[in-house]
């Protein structure tokens, strides 16, 4: 009997995947720009008729995160949520992407004659536009989107060490804390009148302009902190670095707990609200761009060489010590930036936030998304943030579901979902569907 069920199940699975593949084949030649246009239309649709449609299908509001939380809260709304998702997202995206693929490919082709920078800017503006209007519907979405983008920065920077360099570093929450505290002190001291640092020293209108300075300052302090870990620990490898970096994380935490000037365990609050969507978006794009270029540069290749065999790399004239040092400081810098942004989104930090749980979260994002891969880190950070937000109604079962998911990923894809893949921006913007290019596609995959 069970055998029969299994074989029937397998048959159903095979037909389902067959259908999906067939269905997806319609969309293989849809360029990125068409997808973005389709999403813009969807978002416009949601803004104009989302509320009315939600009422019509029996929901009180458009679901914030694709209806998962809604269904988990109230399974009876399953049908309504599905109908809403199909009518607002699935159907328009599919139809418009399908219909505009011809024009989209022509535009993509036409954009090819311009420098890559222009093409990127066009795409980025579209992406930002979609995000801006998508998050304008609900502040909850806005907050989730901002936190997810910060996760991207932090995850990417950890991937430089844990993925590209192949070491296991645990000090990322410490670097985030350094960045968060330095930039918070900077902005609160200069631009906010509060009971900790007294009157604002500079007029408030300068604040948003000085915010990048505070972030970069935070990044540099983090990098300096990383130097402190690097000097004693890079003579060691593997487990020893993990332990030293873990110790560093606790040192930073204790440091801020014992520093009465910055509030001790009570932390700093009242950070000005500078980290809005576009600020974080710009920083995230910068982080992805710079980190991607870094890992694809000679330095990045040297890093991979060090990971795969330090002795061999050194025999091939790679300066292993310097390579490791630069990568580590570079990663710490970006973690510091992420921490600074984080502090200005939550607008409150305390040492306890940057503890072992933050570490577990960031590590989970890196290994979930995939080692040695920029795309993987983006997928990991966004995916993990969304899953953990959407499953909130499950309470304690969320902490059963997520670990099981991670275990399964570790069994079936030990290096993460999208590991060891290069992130080629130029290829992303290419027109799709030509025979020769498809060949390139497969090779890259």
């Amino acid at each position, binding site marked *: 009997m069970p055998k029969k069920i299994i074989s029937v199940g397998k048959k159903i699975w095979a037909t389902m995947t067959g259908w999906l593949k067939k269905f997806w084949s*319609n969309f293989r030649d849809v360029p990125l720009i068409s997808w973005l246009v389709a999403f813009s239309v969807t978002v416009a649709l949601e803004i104009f008729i989302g509320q009315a*449609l939600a*009422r*019509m*299908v*029996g929901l*009180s*509001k458009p679901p*914030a995160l694709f209806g998962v*939380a809604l269904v988990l809260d109230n399974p009876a709304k399953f*049908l*309504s949520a599905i*109908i809403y998702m*199909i*009518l607002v997202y699935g*159907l328009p995206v*599919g*139809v418009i992407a*399908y219909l505009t693929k011809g024009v989209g490919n022509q535009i993509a082709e036409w954009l090819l004659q311009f420098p890559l920078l222009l093409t990127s800017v066009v795409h980025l503006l579209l992406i930002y536009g979609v995000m801006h209007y998508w998050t304008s519907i*609900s*502040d*909850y979405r*806005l*907050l*989730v989107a901002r*936190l997810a983008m910060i996760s991207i920065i932090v995850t990417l920077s950890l991937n430089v060490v844990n993925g590209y360099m192949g070491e296991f570093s645990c000090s990322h929450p410490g670097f985030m804390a350094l960045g968060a505290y330095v930039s918070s002190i900077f902005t609160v001291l200069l631009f906010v009148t509060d*009971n900790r640092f007294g009157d604002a020293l500079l007029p408030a209108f300068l604040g948003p302009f000085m915010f990048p300075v505070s972030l970069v300052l935070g990044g540099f302090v983090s990098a300096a902190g990383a130097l402190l870990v690097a000097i004693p620990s890079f003579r060691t490898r593997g487990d020893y670095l993990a332990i030293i970096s873990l110790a560093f994380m606790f040192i930073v*935490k*204790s440091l801020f*707990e*014992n520093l009465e000037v910055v509030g*001790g*365990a*009570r*932390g700093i*609050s*009242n950070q000005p609200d500078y980290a809005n969507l576009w600020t974080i978006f710009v920083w995230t794009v910068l982080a992805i761009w710079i980190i991607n270029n870094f890992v694809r540069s000679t330095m990045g290749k040297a890093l991979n060489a060090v990971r795969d065999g330090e002795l061999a790399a050194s025999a091939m004239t790679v300066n292993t010590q310097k390579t490791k040092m630069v990568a580590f400081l570079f990663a710490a810098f970006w973690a510091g930036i992420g921490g600074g942004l*984080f502090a200005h*989104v*939550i*607008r*409150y*930090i*305390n*040492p*306890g*936030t940057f503890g072992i*749980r933050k570490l577990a979260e960031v590590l989970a994002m890196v290994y979930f998304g995939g080692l040695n891969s920029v795309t993987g880190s983006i997928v990991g950070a966004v995916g993990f943030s969304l899953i953990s*937000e959407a499953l*909130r*109604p499950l*309470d*304690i079962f*969320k*902490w059963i579901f997520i670990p099981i998911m991670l275990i399964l990923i570790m069994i079936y894809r030990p290096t993460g979902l999208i590991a060891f893949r290069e992130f080629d921006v130029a290829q992303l913007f290419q027109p799709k569907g030509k025979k020769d290019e498809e060949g390139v596609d497969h090779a890259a995959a």
Partner: protein
Amino acid sequence: MKTKKIFRLTLLLVIATLICTACGQAAQPTIKIGVNAPLTGDIPKVGEGSKFAAEMWLEEIGGELEVGGQTYPVELVIEDNESKAESAASVNQKLITQDEVLAIVGPQSSKQAVPAGGAANDGQTPMVSPWSTNPNTTLNRPWVFRTPFLDSFQGPAVAKFVTEEFGFTKAGVLYDIASDYPKGLADYFKQGWEDIHGEGSVVAFESFTTGDTDFSAQITKIKESGAEFFFTPQYYNEVALIVQQARELGFNQPIVGSDSWGSAELLNLCGEDCYGLFYSSHYLAENPTGEAKEFIEGYEEKYGYVPDDVGALTWDTMHIIERAINECGEITGDIEADRTCVRDALANIKNFEGVTGTMTFTEEGDPIKCALIIKIGDDGSKSVYEQTCPEE
């Protein structure tokens, strides 16, 4: 061919939608109260206490409230904040924009209540924290309230009590520097004590870090400093260790505590070593009277244990919100107007009789309420020894 398929699919969905429209009725306005609690993470017991108390309240009112002659169904939206600061903020954001709650209860600990309070204030939704004692939670936030008294009241109140009761002049303090509640309270106690006895009268100000279990070095220092007693605003599990170790090291002077001692577990862990000690508290679960008795007995019967202070404070918080809604007089259905109305009512609540004492609220959002000094008797029974009230 393909377009035809898509067309058919669209048609099907439109029909499905129309059918659903027929079955979906216009919902009657519901009063939604959000509960933002740490059901998982570092302090699940605290979240559980709050959740249970809130559910008990819902049961007590029978799931509906009568406002201005009309009954409205009441719904609790309980969300888990994993005892993380960023989650607490997103939960509040979700409750405000997605669930459209009328008011929010929680978060409990200050590290979540401070960022969540910011979200509630920006979203113009009344929020009442039943546990947070950090002044920043409500500072300059007209939409944020709390039900426990502040550390800046409790610390000096304990200092005053010890001075009057024992006539001591030299104090020691032992606290956890990594946890914000003990740290804040220790600071305010020190301040209060030095206001009475002058600079340098706190002869030992010793700290440890969360998770430590050996306090002998700190206790020895306190003993050698000549302190006549020491104040330790720690949680009950640490209190048991601290008191036992102090007695073993020959420190036989009194040890005084704060509201975090107020758990039924304290005496089970500490035993005879804790007999004869004093601590300040919001309420006493033993020998309750009146409404408190009803609450405590009902809770114990339902969930199998005596509620801790967080349960009692949440219970009061729910009733305060209920009263604010009642005083509001009507539910218009316009969520923004209703929220404003509830906030204004909250800021004007006078002499609310709760399980944890009588409270009066002001625009600042902090209650004016009395603290109880509890004495643990020589037979292990707890009794109210004294009541200290803020000066008018």
